């Protein structure tokens, strides 16, 4: 039966066929099935470790009698406090109350005696009678715990182990050289890499699939609605597809330290999941989702899982029904996305689909052309625009949050720096552009080539991306009712100067990165990244490490991408001088770049004649 299944699958996707053939061997199947069953047993036994037995105490949570005693004690204590209040009233009056006081004191003693008797019952290691145990409620809650345990375990196993498996497989194929044969086959990139995503973690899928019946049963027994359970599966599948696609891109683009890469990738996912789980499971009633940095929260499945299973999580553990989860406050262009399950689910899925689609554009490029840039210039403009929609959409809700503009500015800064690395072409590509551009059949205009060309240098494309990134944010800040002072207490004019300073700084970074990528060294990518990191981090680290926030040294911030911190302390003249200095450096570097491009584009005969 298994053979037929693999054969049928192979007709649809040959790569999936290859992956299943290599992995679905009897020994692997037995080991995975046994492992999954063992995991289910451990989870089950762990959760029912405190099942009520012969010595089940009267004060334990599921003893009906204990609860009754407790409610009686509560009523008596209430009665006692009323009597005490009355007594206090009579004590303060002067006459004719002796008899009433005496009566009340007798009542008080009686009540106290009853309370003492109840206390004795409750706390003298009294055992709860078997017929007084609330078995239905106990099982319902504990099935809930089991269900939650599986829901959390599935996320960790699928995302962490799956990421490791995919990066490791790609690194191994690349090392052996077998991936080249697949590249040369007539199958599309999409077919091959989808086959890998479905096939490489197939044993992990099997591990989880074997546990699904118990998960479903636990959900049913805990009275979790099927809609919520299948919404969970939908989110889990979408997050798997997103993270596996990202792993695939990492595996295809990083050819250094291939043995370390799988650990790096899966370790990052583990840290990401752990951090976001803290954020969304424990910090309830917070405004986390009101700042745009929480786009990262949208790609973590925890936000949605905490929303779907809040009854199982919060009611059971904290007995707290009035909790408002951070994700419930999620707004997008003032639409209350977080209020309803269908909108929240749809928003999550849409975000996953668009983000994964973006990653696949880069995957397709990296798979066919191993030396090309990560993104095409056209894709980079779409990416920048997509981020602006997401970031401003997440920031422009009805509720305002002091972190909204700060995180918007920081994310845009990081986006620009990432785009420089993703778009800068290597020496070989630029050389071919400089030398043979005029020989191409359909020679495009130089401007068009610099804006959209595959091989042209990156400067103009980064400038366009800067415009796409900063124009909407600036307009939004200027024309919305928000106080721009929340960006490090800046005035609007200071903010505007900051944007100009930032643009000139990024042009310096871009030219430096491109110049180093043109260096004649096999390690030029490493050099480029190191120099880039040095130039970006040094002016950021100096003030941070010296802990100087004020005074002359704080001007160093003006030369870091996070210049917003320093701009407030600087005088207008200093800011203008910084802009002029940056522009002068950018012009000088670009003159050098142009000279180098001309030299690269010279024909060999010209070099011979001149030399």
């Amino acid at each position, binding site marked *: 039966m298994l053979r037929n299944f693999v054969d049928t699958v*192979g*007709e649809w996707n*040959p*790569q999936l*066929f*290859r992956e299943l*053939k*290599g992995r679905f061997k009897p020994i692997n199947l037995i080991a995975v099935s046994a492992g999954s069953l063992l995991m289910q047993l451990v989870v089950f036994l762990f959760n029912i470790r405190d099942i009520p037995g012969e010595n089940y105490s009267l004060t334990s949570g599921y003893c009906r009698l204990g609860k009754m005693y407790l409610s009686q004690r509560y009523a008596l204590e209430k009665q006692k406090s009323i009597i005490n209040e009355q007594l206090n009233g009579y004590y303060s009056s002067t006459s004719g109350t002796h008899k009433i006081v005496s009566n009340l004191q007798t009542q008080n003693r009686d009540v106290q005696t009853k309370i003492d008797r109840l206390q004795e019952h409750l706390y003298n290691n009294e055992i709860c009678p078997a017929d007084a145990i609330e078995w239905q409620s106990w099982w319902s809650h504990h099935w809930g715990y089991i269900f939650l345990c599986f829901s959390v375990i599935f996320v960790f196993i699928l995302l962490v182990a799956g990421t490791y498996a995919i990066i490791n497989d790609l690194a191994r194929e690349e090392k*052996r*050289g*077998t991936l*080249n*044969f*697949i*590249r*040369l*086959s*007539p*199958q*599309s*990139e999409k077919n091959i890499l989808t086959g890998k995503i479905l096939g490489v973690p197939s044993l992990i899928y099997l591990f989880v699939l074997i546990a699904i019946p118990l998960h479903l049963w636990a959900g049913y027994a805990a009275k979790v609605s099927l809609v919520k359970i299948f919404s969970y599966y939908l989110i889990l599948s979408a997050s798997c597809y997103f993270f596996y696609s990202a792993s695939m891109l990492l595996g295809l683009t990083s050819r250094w330290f291939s043995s370390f890469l799988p650990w790096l990738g899966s370790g990052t996912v583990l840290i990401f999941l752990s951090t976001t789980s803290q954020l969304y499971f424990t910090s309830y009633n917070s405004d986390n989702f009101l700042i745009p940095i929480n786009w990262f929260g949208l790609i973590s499945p925890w936000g949605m899982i905490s929303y779907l299973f809040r009854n199982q999580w919060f009611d059971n553990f904290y007995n707290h029904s009035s909790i408002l989860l951070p994700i419930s406050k999620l707004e997008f262009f003032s639409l209350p996305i977080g209020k309803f399950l269908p909108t929240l689910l749809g928003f999550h899925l849409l975000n996953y689909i668009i983000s994964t689609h973006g990653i696949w554009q880069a995957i397709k490029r990296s798979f*066919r*052309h191993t030396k090309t840039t990560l993104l095409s210039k056209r894709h980079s403009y779409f990416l920048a625009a997509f981020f602006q929609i997401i970031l401003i959409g997440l920031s422009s809700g009805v509720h305002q949050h002091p972190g909204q503009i700060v995180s918007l500015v920081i994310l845009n800064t990081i986006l620009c720096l990432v785009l420089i690395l993703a778009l800068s072409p290597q*020496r*070989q590509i630029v*050389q*071919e552009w400089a*030398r*043979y551009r005029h*020989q191409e059949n359909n020679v495009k205009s130089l401007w068009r080539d610099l804006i959209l060309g595959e091989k042209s240098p990156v400067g103009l494309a980064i400038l366009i991306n800067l415009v796409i990134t900063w124009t909407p944010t600036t307009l939004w800040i200027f024309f919305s009712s928000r106080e721009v002072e929340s960006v490090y207490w800046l005035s609007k004019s200071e903010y505007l100067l900051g944007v100009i300073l930032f643009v000139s700084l990024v042009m310096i970074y871009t030219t430096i990165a491109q110049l180093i990528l043109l260096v*004649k060294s096999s390690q030029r990518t490493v050099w480029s990244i190191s120099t880039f990191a040095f130039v970006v981090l040094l002016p950021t680290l100096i003030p941070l490490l010296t802990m100087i926030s004020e005074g002359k040294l704080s001007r160093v911030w003006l030369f870091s991408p996070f210049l917003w911190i320093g701009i407030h302390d600087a005088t207008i003249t200093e800011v203008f001088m910084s802009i002029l200095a940056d522009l002068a450096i950018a012009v000088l570097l670009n003159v050098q770049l142009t000279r180098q491009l001309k030299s690269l584009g010279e024909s*060999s005969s010209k*070099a011979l004649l001149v030399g």
Partner: protein
Amino acid sequence: MVKELAIRTCGLTKQFEKHFAVNDVDLEIQAGEVYGLIGPNGAGKTTLIRMLAAAEEPTVGEIYLNGDRLLRDRSNSDLKRQLGYLPDDYPLYEDLTVWDYLDYFARLYYLREPRRTKRLHEVLELIQLGNKRHSLISTLSRGMKQRLSLARTIIHEPILLLLDEPVSGLDPIARMQFREIIKVLQEAGMTILISSHVLSDLAELCTSVGIMELGFLVESANIQQFYHRLARQQIFLSTLGSLELLVNELKQHPLVEDLEVIASRNSVRVNFSGKEQDCADLLRSLVIMGIPLKDFHCTQEDLETIFLKLGHKQAS
């Protein structure tokens, strides 16, 4: 009738830094030919073959396969179905069996049942690995792995086969088996481009030959034309009598260019510029002179001698 061109390149160039691995190559190979590509190490053979197989992007130039342009930025799905490429290294999936490995590649190239199973049997029979079909690839010998790689290359019945150093590192028996397979494929009508350092193999297999040097294609011709233009006619003579007398007689003959004495075998090898009739006249004159000839036969310089004679020893 002029045959259709299976491969045509126009100004094909591949530049790494300032170094031209392939320089302005205009290659034309007719359908059905076995084209041998020879040249010293680093002459650009592998780069040229990689570009033809779409494994490497040309810096400039155009490639046409059976008249269709090969464009690297497209998937070229139809063209790739016509191509079979065997690189000089042949990585394999060691965790698969021979059958599963070929089955996988047959599926990658869209072979459907029942044709797929039939083709797998045909190919296994051709490479003589039928009895090993359920063995894991990791257990095969080097020669078997090489044959399996060839099987992978031809599983989808390509009409154009690109073989880069296919017999390097194989023992004489494995080489002979490989040669026989290539002959069968040639008979089946495939166009084959093969690069090799074993020139005797190429001489036996090829219908055309090209020589690469410094990234240029410096010679490209039909093998008959090639021999006719570049190979000198040689006559091998052995005598039972005096070798000195034979040598003196030969030196006086106007069509003898130079000669090489093989004293150990009492023989002489002569570079002869005459035609067949002139050979017959020389034989008759020597017999009349009373020289007791034991052996007299005409040969041609082999491919290796021509290659070395042309002085193509310069790597790019």
